[in-house]
């Protein structure tokens, strides 16, 4: 679309406004009319939540925006966020049949158009079901938790979400950079869930503010949707220096309080090359950093960031240093970061994960002078909680039945990043939303089956 606005070092707030322009009414009308309205459309199958895309687009064309937003949000309780953060070219837009004749429909942008309308017009899209006397605790108010809660509430369950953070929304509220996903969008989605009489207890960490025992006693069923935790340690010298950041926390800061100008004119490196690393890098640029480099021990080929994120980072002026691993972080006498010692790597043959393992090149060490080091090498698991719940897991990845999302404890279901295992596709918001829905349907089946049996 339009050229990205130049970064301002004076008004940082501008840098964090949504970069992608919304479709105008005229653009949305023209684009929606371009949709073929396929039968048994491949875009629907390519959407993890199975949104009836041709139907919602047809409704935009006919001026039925309320119906369009309902169609979207009915299948995907975080459909407004997903319209902005989904890798659409790999999902719906990638499957659009028009890829084979002209150019695909801008499904993401149309989805945003319809949900923006609902947000702007303060619509309440769904109603709670008739109370059925059953209660469910949802641990974690991110995409998976919200999605499960929304569907359960529509079935008539009394749902309570336990959220450790100040606000619900999880990744959508705190983890996705504001210039991709403004917080207001996530808040609206949370609000839609709350309007179904779902209780959301924020600032409430299970295992600390409320015990696992209480949960097990007070609720008929539990949905574990706690996602992942902080970025793990690099295990190198200097990690405790001032100026070393956890990328997740770093992004969260930009979404939680007034933007700090301490990055203006500074040099930063980001370690890792996933989407979170890109976020850390582009946030640094937008906080005014003069030079931002991403260090990755493998190459462009192996990086896990989406292509559009990679492109976006390059346009923001982020530099990439491939086959580069950190060896130690160097600080000054005040305990502040001044540089990072790196070592060149080379790739070996593909291992059992089909990924090529990097090996250091002896004697290739060199120092990059930096003021900040942002770590983005993955996320740790909420092991303590998982063990307190006595659930079967593999290095913190909760084991579930792939169809029902039921854990080793029959009354506990788990969905979202907490069940996301290594090398199992992308940990997408849209996948978490779908798993939340499926967990909710399984719970409902479980209870209705019991009732029918009685």
């Amino acid at each position, binding site marked *: 679309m339009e050229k990205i606005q130049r970064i301002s070092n004076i008004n940082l707030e501008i840098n964090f406004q949504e970069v992608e322009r919304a479709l105008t009414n005229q653009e949305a009308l023209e684009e929606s009319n371009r949709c073929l309205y396929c039968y*048994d459309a491949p875009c629907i199958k390519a959407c993890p939540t199975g949104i009836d895309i041709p139907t919602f687009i047809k409704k935009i064309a006919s001026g039925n925006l309320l119906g369009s937003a309902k169609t979207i949000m009915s299948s995907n309780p975080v459909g407004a966020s997903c319209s902005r953060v989904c890798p659409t070219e790999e999902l719906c837009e990638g499957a659009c049949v028009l890829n084979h004749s002209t150019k695909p429909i801008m499904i993401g942008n149309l989805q945003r158009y319809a949900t923006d309308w609902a947000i702007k017009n303060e619509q309440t899209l769904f109603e709670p079901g008739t109370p059925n006397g059953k209660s469910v605790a949802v641990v974690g108010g991110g995409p998976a938790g919200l999605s499960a809660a929304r569907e359960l509430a529509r079935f008539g369950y009394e749902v309570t979400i336990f959220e450790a953070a100040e606000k619900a929304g999880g990744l959508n509220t705190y983890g996705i950079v504001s210039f991709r996903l403004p917080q207001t969008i996530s808040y609206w989605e949370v609000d839609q869930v709350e309007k179904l009489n779902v209780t959301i207890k924020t600032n409430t960490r299970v295992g600390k503010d409320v015990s696992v025992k209480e949960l097990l006693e007070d609720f008929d069923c539990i949905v574990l949707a706690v996602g992942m935790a902080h970025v793990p340690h690099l295990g190198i010298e200097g990690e405790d220096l001032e100026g070393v950041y956890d990328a997740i926390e770093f992004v969260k800061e930009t979404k939680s309080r007034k933007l700090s100008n301490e990055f203006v004119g500074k040099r930063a490196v980001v370690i890792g090359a996933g989407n979170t690393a890109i976020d850390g890098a582009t946030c640094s640029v937008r906080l005014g950093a003069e030079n931002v480099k991403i260090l990755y021990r493998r190459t462009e080929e192996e990086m896990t960031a989406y292509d559009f994120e990679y492109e976006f980072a390059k346009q923001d002026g982020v530099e990439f240093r491939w086959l580069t691993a950190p060896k130690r972080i160097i600080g000054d006498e005040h305990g502040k970061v001044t540089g990072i010692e790196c070592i060149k790597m080379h790739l070996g043959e593909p291992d059992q994960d089909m990924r090529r393992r990097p090996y250091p090149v002896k004697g290739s060490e060199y120092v990059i002078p930096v003021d900040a080091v942002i770590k983005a090498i993955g996320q740790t698991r909420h092991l303590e909680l998982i063990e307190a719940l006595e659930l079967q897991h593999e290095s913190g990845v909760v084991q579930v039945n792939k169809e029902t999302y039921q854990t080793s404890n029959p009354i506990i279901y788990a969905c979202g990043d907490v069940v996301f295992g290594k090398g199992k596709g992308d940990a997408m918001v849209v996948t978490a939303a779908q798993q939340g829905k499926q967990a909710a349907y399984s719970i409902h089946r479980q209870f209705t089956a019991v009732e029918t049996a009685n």
Partner: protein
Amino acid sequence: MADLSINLAGIKSPNPFWLASAPPTNSGYQVQRAFEAGWGGAVWKTLGDPILNVTSRFAAISFNGQRVAGFNNIELITDRPLEVNLKEIYETKKRFPNHAIIASLMMEPKQEKWHELVKRVEDVGVDGLELNFGCPHGMAERGMGSASGQVPALVERQTYWVKEVAKTPVIVKLTPNITDITSTAEAACIGGADAISMINTINSLMGVDLDSWNTIPHVAGKGAHGGYCGPAVKPIALNMVAECARHAHINVPISGIGGISNWQDAVEFMLMGATGVQVCTAAMHHGFRIVEDMIEGLSHYLDGKGIKSVSEIIGKSVPRYSDWGNLDLNYNIVAKINTDVCINCNKCHIACEDTSHQCIDMLTDENGKSYLKVREEDCVGCNLCSIVCPVDGAIDMVEVPNELPPMSWNDRQSALSLVTECKIDINK
């Protein structure tokens, strides 16, 4: 380059593209701009007794975002004094002696009034006259326009009155708001018309505003039917031209009008019997400059076909237009889907499954790839699948060889009647 000039009942113009009598031909300024742009002729906005117009006069429908798929107006004939129009016609003709200027006329059905108008108009040097028996709104309420044009006797009588005094060719413009346009076309011929033109606009109400519940357009909260034209009416107009062209008793040139937007439309009208065409809505949508492509496109088309003069194509498709009863019942076509071009939108499947003859299957090949296939034995050759298909070349309608000789319904019925007669004979 092919010769594009035409001669319609003695009215000559450098090309077949005329502007129809309508807002674009309201003044000398406009018509001269049109001639400069390349239009071959113009039918001046209808002259007659003074009228008053209302404001909020036009409306159009958009279809799936395409603007002006159809257009509607409630504007009346010229609202400028006759003397002013005549002076500008004179000046325009003087500046553009080789372009055709036809005066459109409307008058109450009185012989002396028609005589007076014809004389005054011919005095300034027009190339021809077009009698407006088609305008369906406003003037019709006063017994003129389509109110006259719907009564064959009135068409014949008024044409006759005009022909009593006219020195230039007389074109009679017909209304489509009638069950069978050939009846009024024939009446015009009997009255002495040198040519006929069609179609004028169709009675229409463009819409109702969903919030105010007013008509579209409305004049201070009230609406009245207008006249419909533009691309949406083209098939209706083309049929009416063709029906007149193939009619045994209608043997005058036809000026084709109705939704003509480009050179291709013009070629179709000419193949179906029009000697030239008149255009309005397309010019109102885009301006006079559209004629440049019309001329060039037509010229390239004729050159490509090795045709020396545009006149050679007039009526060439008329013999191919007939009655349903003469169509060959043994002709057989079926749909064939080209899977390498098909993009798998499945629109053909659902259209056939829900609304036609249930003969397109959604299948999966050994590699798990979806494809569509027509069960030819069940296909009735209706064309629906190829119509809804969004990709050119994905569905072909292919002729299936048939050993049976051609036989139409009429052939069949006459053959059967012979058999019946035989039986009667046998029984005797």
